[in-house]
């Protein structure tokens, strides 16, 4: 093949895989360690004393670092993809990551990883690059094109962020495929089936349900629904919370605040969960820092009672998907189970109840490994796109958009222009005019979601139609064409019809990276070249220096300043002068040291400020100060220790 292979990638919350079509069957490509699954974990190795550059590791090796150096490791980053600051702050209540302090509203948030900061797409790009390398090692040839799967219920921003990650990893993303649809492809490959199937996909962090009609190789999605915040992680957190609470109550040891210990406990919770899929009882047996042992039995019945509320949340989306597809449970011929969490017997029972399977003498499909089936399906779709294979030439996937597209109308209501579950690509043409004589701009706000008010929907983009020829109000007729492409991503074009002029459009995505930003984040640009990496360290060290210098600049204006002794004031001035001089240099480590020194010198000043205005000081200081309160909340379902760094 002249253009090289197209691989299929399942970029999962917990694990990621890469697969390809070997003849007429899709197979998963193993990594160097022989494992098919690459844990979606990214770690930054500690910077060595000799000043060598820190390297990024991905997968099993990164996972090992979770316990030793949890502040240099990120996992479940998929939950952060395409989300704004507010959403990420909510998310970080459940995960021990720290947001960079200097994120402006409207910017793509950055997460701290050791002394560096990364956007979620960059973290995902490291995972993708690892998969790319695994494939290249396997083929002995470069791999540049891929199909990547996303949860069916991912919105526009989440899809765009995934595509951006692909580009950063040096992959041309030929198509984003919905995970449940990919699973259906994997199952449908060897049979020319006719019928209606439901795919129930409960993964690590997301839940999807899709209803498809199969006919002569055409996989036509009828409806899809889901929850991008529901999965095995939630179950792990429930077990973890119980263990943390009991250890605190029974042994007087509060592990919250010790990220390494919490990670160890999380691992034990996951093991217990997995054990309970086959055993009637699982055991916790953990050595605590004070030498005690925390031992506990978890019978399956208790476990099932515990997770029932989580599982029950999948029922609503299933029912809505059936309604939208216009079918009853009895009309579903087959059910396919996808995602590691569908190994849980209680999940299988729920699926049986939802689709009346046992009563009809049916069983859900579990023949393909639920961890691998999505990647296998992605490989099938990759083969369809490559267009060179007999085994897939009759197959075609017709997918839908999971969420309605709308425009904010007067009064903040939403006027829907493309309904959810429309087959994609889908388009809509709308006409706009002016309300004031001579008006040359019209502002349009595009949202995604099912709620009545625009404020309750997801904001996709705001754009201005500019350069409208001045006319009387109501006379211009601007035709705006909205098109959702085969990846589920929106494109907009506009034209003024009376003058025949193409109206200029400036689409400002509400969230997400600009093209230039993505370009600057392409991994090779700073990963292959050591000086680029050093440059990045330097830039971030300088930014931190600027932040603290700016704060110290304002200090003499504060009442707390006058409470300092002359000596203290002099020490601060000296440290400030040193940092101001050093930050102009090229030595990132020296800048960091000087920043730290200034931070030390201003410690008492900061304390005085805190006393003076406790609330404002906390809000202004760091993100994790707010997070510390969360850790104590026993009632919170996901009480997790805030990360402790330094």
């Amino acid at each position, binding site marked *: 093949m002249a*253009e090289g292979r197209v691989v299929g990638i399942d970029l999962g919350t917990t694990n990621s895989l890469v697969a390809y079509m070997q003849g007429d069957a899709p197979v998963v490509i193993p990594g160097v360690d022989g494992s098919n699954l690459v844990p979606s974990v990214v770690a930054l190795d500690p910077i060595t004393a000799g000043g060598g550059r820190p390297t990024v590791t991905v997968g099993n090796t990164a996972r090992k670092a979770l316990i030793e150096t949890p502040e240099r490791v990120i996992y479940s980053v998929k939950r952060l993809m395409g989300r704004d600051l507010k959403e990420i702050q909510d998310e970080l209540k459940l995960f021990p990551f720290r947001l960079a302090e200097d994120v402006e509203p409207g910017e793509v948030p950055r997460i701290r990883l050791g002394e560096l900061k990364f956007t979620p797409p960059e973290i995902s790009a490291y995972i993708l690059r690892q998969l790319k390398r695994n494939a290249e090692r396997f083929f002995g040839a470069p791999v540049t094109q891929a199909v990547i799967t996303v949860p069916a219920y991912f919105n526009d921003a989440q899809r765009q962020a995934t595509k951006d990650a692909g580009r950063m990893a040096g992959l041309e993303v*030929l*198509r984003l495929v919905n995970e449940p649809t990919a699973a259906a492809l994997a199952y449908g490959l060897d049979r020319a089936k006719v019928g209606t199937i439901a795919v129930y996909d409960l993964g690590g962090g997301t839940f999807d349900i899709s209803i498809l009609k199969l*006919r*002569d190789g*055409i996989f*036509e999605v009828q409806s899809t629904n889901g929850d991008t915040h529901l999965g095995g992680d939630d179950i792990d957190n429930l077990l973890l919370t119980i263990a943390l609470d009991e250890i605190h109550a029974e042994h007087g040891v509060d592990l919250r605040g010790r990220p390494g210990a919490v990670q160890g406990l999380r691992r034990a919770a996951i093991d217990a969960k997995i054990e309970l899929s086959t055993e009637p009882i699982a055991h916790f047996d953990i050595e605590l820092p004070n030498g005690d042992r925390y031992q506990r039995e978890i019978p399956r019945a208790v476990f099932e009672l515990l997770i029932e509320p989580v599982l029950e949340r999948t029922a609503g989306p299933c029912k809505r998907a059936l309604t939208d597809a216009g079918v009853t449970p009895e009309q579903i011929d087959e059910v396919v189970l996808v995602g590691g969490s569908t190994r849980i017997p209680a999940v299988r029972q729920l699926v049986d109840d939802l689709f009346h399977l046992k009563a009809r003498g049916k069983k859900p499909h579990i023949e393909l490994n639920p961890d691998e089936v999505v990647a296998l399906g992605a490989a099938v*779709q990759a083969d*369809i*796109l*490559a*267009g060179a294979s007999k085994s897939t030439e009759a197959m*075609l*996937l*017709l997918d839908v958009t999971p969420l309605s597209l709308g*425009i*904010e*109308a*007067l*009064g903040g*209501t939403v*006027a829907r222009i493309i309904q959810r579950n*429309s*087959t*994609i*690509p*889908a*388009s*809509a043409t*709308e*006409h*706009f*005019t*002016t*309300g*004031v004589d001579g*008006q040359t701009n*019209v*502002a*349009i*706000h595009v949202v995604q979601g099912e709620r009545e008010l625009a404020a309750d929907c997801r904001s996709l983009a705001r754009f201005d139609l500019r350069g409208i020829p001045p006319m009387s*109000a*109501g006379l211009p007729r601007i035709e705006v064409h909205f*098109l*959702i*492409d*085969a990846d589920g991503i929106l494109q907009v074009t506009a034209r003024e019809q009376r003058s025949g002029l193409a109206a200029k459009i400036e689409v400002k995505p509400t969230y997400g990276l600009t093209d230039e930003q993505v370009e600057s984040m392409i991994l090779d640009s700073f990963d292959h070249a050591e000086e680029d990496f050093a440059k990045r360290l330097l830039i971030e060290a300088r930014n931190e220096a600027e932040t603290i210098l700016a704060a110290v600049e304002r200090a003499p204006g504060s009442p707390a300043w006058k409470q300092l002794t002359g000596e203290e004031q002099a020490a601060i001035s000296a440290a400030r002068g040193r940092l101001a001089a050093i930050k102009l240099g090229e030595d990132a480590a020296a800048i960091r040291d000087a920043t730290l020194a200034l931070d030390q010198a201003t410690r008492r000043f900061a304390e005085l400020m805190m006393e003076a205005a406790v609330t404002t000081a906390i809000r202004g200081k760091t993100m994790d100060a707010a997070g510390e309160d969360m850790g104590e909340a026993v009632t919170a379902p996901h009480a997790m220790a805030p990360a402790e760094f330094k």
Partner: protein
Amino acid sequence: MLKVLDSAVPIPCWSCSIGHNDSTLFCPHCSKIQPPPGGNYFSVFGLEPRLNLDLPALEHEFHRLSRKVHPDRFARAGENERQWSLADTALLNDAYRTLKDPLHRTEYLLKLEGAEIGEEFAAPAGRGAENGKDRKDPSRVPADLLEEVFELNMQLEEMRMARKMGEEDPALQASLEQAKRKFDGLLVEVDQNLHIEWQAWDEGDAAARKRAQKTMLALLDRRRYLSNLVRDVTETLGA
């Protein structure tokens, strides 16, 4: 039964330069994909505008065209062909979605014939929110239903109040369920009448078509009104 429309002015194919009619997704000579054609949703499927459609045949044609035009078939094609595939498939999908649904199909055909349906808008920076407000506007209530609708709205209000107070009112419940059955029945009646008009439009001459269009517009208004009403009752009962 699929007819091909011939355009008066042939358009040259970008690839083989041979002229073809402009309502085709593919050049009939060299089979290359063409930019989005003119015409309408019916002509995408090679159909004359009509209201009684053979839905299995439509689905079959939709699948046949999808196989040829879908972006999956052009993933590695040149930029132009990729863009045309995207635009053509969007058109095909929009057309199929509209035509397979009886109401959308009827509305679309009436719009093609010049009727103004639903929300054309001319708001300063967007559009007015017309959805749902027509039911509140008494002038839109079908004359024969005025009294019943008035009564029903009172009962709905009462029911919502009772629900809010956590009270049960079996008599009211029964009365609402009865009203729902009645309006459901009226909906069925409207649909039957629409089918009669479909026939009249498909087979009639110009004058008959004009008459059918007028009747269908009124029926669609009535239908929209009734289904909003039924939705309100269902929601209130189910709350």
